[in-house]
């Protein structure tokens, strides 16, 4: 995509930049001198694109000079399209508060809305004991019947919509297909002292000098490494297997009462989340060896494994993971001998879309802080969460909303948006909230990943108790819907 540059009354005024550049050229006679920006955002994932959109859409911050650096080809992302009966395997649930934010910044209407699926109910149960939580809104506790818990959406539908909105807003210097060679600090000249300003060096010689460098560059954030911010945590020794599934029907509740399912297996939770029509998306966290087996199976055997994951006993499943093939036959034989309430599990999977079975390593990471002088981290660069709560992307939206608000306050009070003094409110608003959520998801994972031993009876008690305790349940529901974030 071509760089869209419109410099209308930029924060770093154009004449200053030009003066500065002229001056540098005079001084050093060098061709490549940094372009000065107020915000340089590395990473055009959901977090980075939402941040720039929020800044551009707000009249208070719209005059900031902003640049976006992304390794991928964004033209492909913007023009992303799939036939109505095909879905990308990388889907995320968007909470109502994330959707509200996306709507406020004018991005929501740019998504292909017919590809977004709202769901109103969650069914969660323990694979070992069968204890269940029914996450639907209790009568009286809800604003209206059929209230949406969250929206399933393809990540590409979101990023593509955000790019369209950004293009509509204009004013962003986009550097995609970019390779960051290094990030350094600026220099001191006669007129200016930019020794605290990060400079992003792109392959080809382009240099971007940043009042505020935003790391929206995902879990392996190069910006975080540059800022020397430690990210602590652990690997779960689990992979998330994803796939786009076709079911026998539109779901037990029909088109307007869609249900998300999650079953806790000793190896990790398996979740099936509704997409439009007969389609669903799978997120199955399991051991790396199980994951590679699942990826190696034929479509028929893979489908059988997914159906088994929601129906058969953990022992049966474990056995089927030792087979190199033939799971389909094994499944139909074992199913006959397994009693279960067929309406309490998702409808039977009948197809898996070609090329959609993939896996990602799962880990928990939390950066020690989100800010340094002239650096801020958002989204997965700041924290990586276990996907079992479907909160990763939503946490990033929460970060972006908070950082955009922090920047707005700083701009309207004449503060330098890059200094920690201006950025402090962002960290104090987000850090604790994210930390609690990371901790809760981590504990749930550990609690439900033990196949036997003392935890099993306890957790069965736990799940039943959660189900019984109305207030606690609605707290968890609100958390899932993103309404509860402000509780902390």
């Amino acid at each position, binding site marked *: 995509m071509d760089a869209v540059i419109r410099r209308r009354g930029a*924060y770093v005024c154009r004449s200053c930049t030009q003066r500065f550049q002229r001056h540098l050229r005079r001084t050093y006679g060098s061709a490549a001198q940094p372009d000065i920006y107020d915000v340089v955002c590395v990473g055009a994932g959901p977090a980075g694109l939402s941040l720039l959109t929020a800044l551009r859409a707000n009249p208070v911050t719209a005059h900031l000079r902003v640049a976006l650096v992304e390794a991928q080809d964004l033209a492909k992302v913007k023009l992303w399209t799939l036939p109505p009966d095909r879905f990308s395997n990388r889907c995320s649930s968007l909470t109502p508060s994330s959707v509200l934010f996306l709507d406020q910044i004018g991005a929501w209407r740019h998504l292909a809305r017919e590809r977004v699926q709202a769901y109103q109910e969650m069914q969660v149960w323990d694979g070992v004991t069968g204890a269940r939580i029914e996450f639907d809104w209790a009568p009286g506790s809800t604003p209206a019947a059929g209230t949406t818990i969250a929206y399933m959406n393809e990540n590409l539908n979101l990023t593509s919509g955000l790019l369209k909105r950004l293009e509509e807003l204009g004013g962003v210097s986009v550097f995609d297909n970019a390779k960051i060679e290094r990030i350094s600090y600026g220099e001191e000249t006669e007129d*200016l002292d930019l020794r605290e300003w990060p400079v992003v060096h792109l392959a080809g010689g382009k240099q971007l000098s940043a009042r505020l460098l935003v790391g929206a560059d995902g879990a392996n954030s190069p910006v975080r490494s540059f800022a020397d911010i430690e990210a602590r945590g652990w690997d779960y020794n689990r992979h998330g297997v994803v796939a786009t599934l076709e079911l026998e029907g539109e779901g037990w509740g029909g088109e307007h009462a869609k249900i998300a399912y999650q079953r806790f297996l000793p190896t990790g939770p398996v979740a099936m989340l509704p997409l439009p029509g007969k389609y669903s998306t799978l997120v199955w966290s399991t051991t790396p060896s199980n994951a590679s087996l699942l990826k190696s199976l034929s479509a028929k055997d893979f489908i059988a494994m997914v159906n088994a994951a929601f129906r058969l006993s953990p022992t049966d499943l474990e056995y089927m993971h030792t087979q190199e093939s033939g799971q389909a036959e094994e499944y139909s034989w074992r199913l006959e001998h397994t009693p279960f309430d067929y309406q309490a599990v998702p409808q039977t999977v009948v197809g898996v879309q070609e090329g959609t079975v993939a896996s990602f390593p799962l880990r928990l990471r939390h950066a020690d802080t989100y800010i340094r002088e002239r650096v801020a981290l958002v989204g997965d660069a700041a924290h990586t969460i276990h996907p079992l709560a479907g909160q990763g992307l939503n946490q990033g939206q929460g970060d972006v909303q908070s950082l955009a608000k922090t920047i707005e306050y700083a701009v309207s009070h*004449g503060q330098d948006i890059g200094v920690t003094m201006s950025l402090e409110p962002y960290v104090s608003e987000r850090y604790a909230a994210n930390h609690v959520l990371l901790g809760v998801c981590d504990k749930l994972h550990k609690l439900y990943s033990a196949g036997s031993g003392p935890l099993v009876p306890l957790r069965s008690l736990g799940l039943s108790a959660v189900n019984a305790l109305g207030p606690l349940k609605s707290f968890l529901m609100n958390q899932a819907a993103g309404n509860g974030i402000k509780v902390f």
Partner: protein
Amino acid sequence: MRPLLRHGPRLSRPARPLWRTAARVAQSTPAAGPCRPSQRSRQLSTTPALQHTHPASASASSSSVNETEISHFSALAASWWDPHGPSRPLHLMNPLRHDFIRTCLSSSPSSSSSPPALRYLDVGCGGGIFAESAARLPSTLSVTAIDPSPTILAVARAHARRDPALGLGKKLVYLNETIESLPVPESPAEGFDVVSLFEVIEHVDYPAAFLDRVGQFVRPGGWLVLSTIARTWTSWVTTNLVAEDLLGMVPKGTHDWNKYINERELRGYFDGQDGVWGVPMVMGVVYVPGLGWKEVRGSEEVGNYFFGVQRVA
């Protein structure tokens, strides 16, 4: 509530403001007589006992700020911009200054010139916390910032070089001047839109003469805004009684608490200027440790407050 910020940079940390304030004052005004709170309000320019007009202060050659004050601020220069240093309360207060100025400007339809291109004069700018922030606002045309300390101005200039948006030397200009040495605008209309005196007036020996001079830099329709601390029982207890009498950290009777100026006294001064000034705007603020500065209605009676007045003629 207590009047915490006499001048931010003096505070080593919010929990120990008294000692710092008192200790500094001990060196600065050794000759001052004993002070005890008087509930009587003084008039800045007429009551002889509290007469602050210096005979020579109107002449451009004299300075309103004494040398000890200047050297005190110079000593703080290095830590001025450290967000965790002694100036932190000032940094935290700065956004409120803009909120207050905005309230003042929007209160008078006459000052809403469009497009807004405000010219600021910041008197006693120190390291430039307010001056820089004013220069960054899109509605600002220029900021002239003056301070008598060359050391602190060197810090201000060095810091402003870190931000190309400030246009140091063009949009933002630092001058090593006092208000007495700065030439008065040739005509009233050439005055500034906003003249600011943040945490300055309590350092001035002759406030009435000082304000007489400062007023000449405000264009008709423009605003004079200041922040300071009230001279009240509360501020006397915290800065005088505790620090001097109880803790004995400062020689008795050397406190310049008497230089503090109450909101009513300021009001009295501006009322007495024959219709030159409009009705003042006031905002009391309180420092809440851990939260920063908060507006508290009525607190101008006891501690830190903002005061703004429009020049109407």
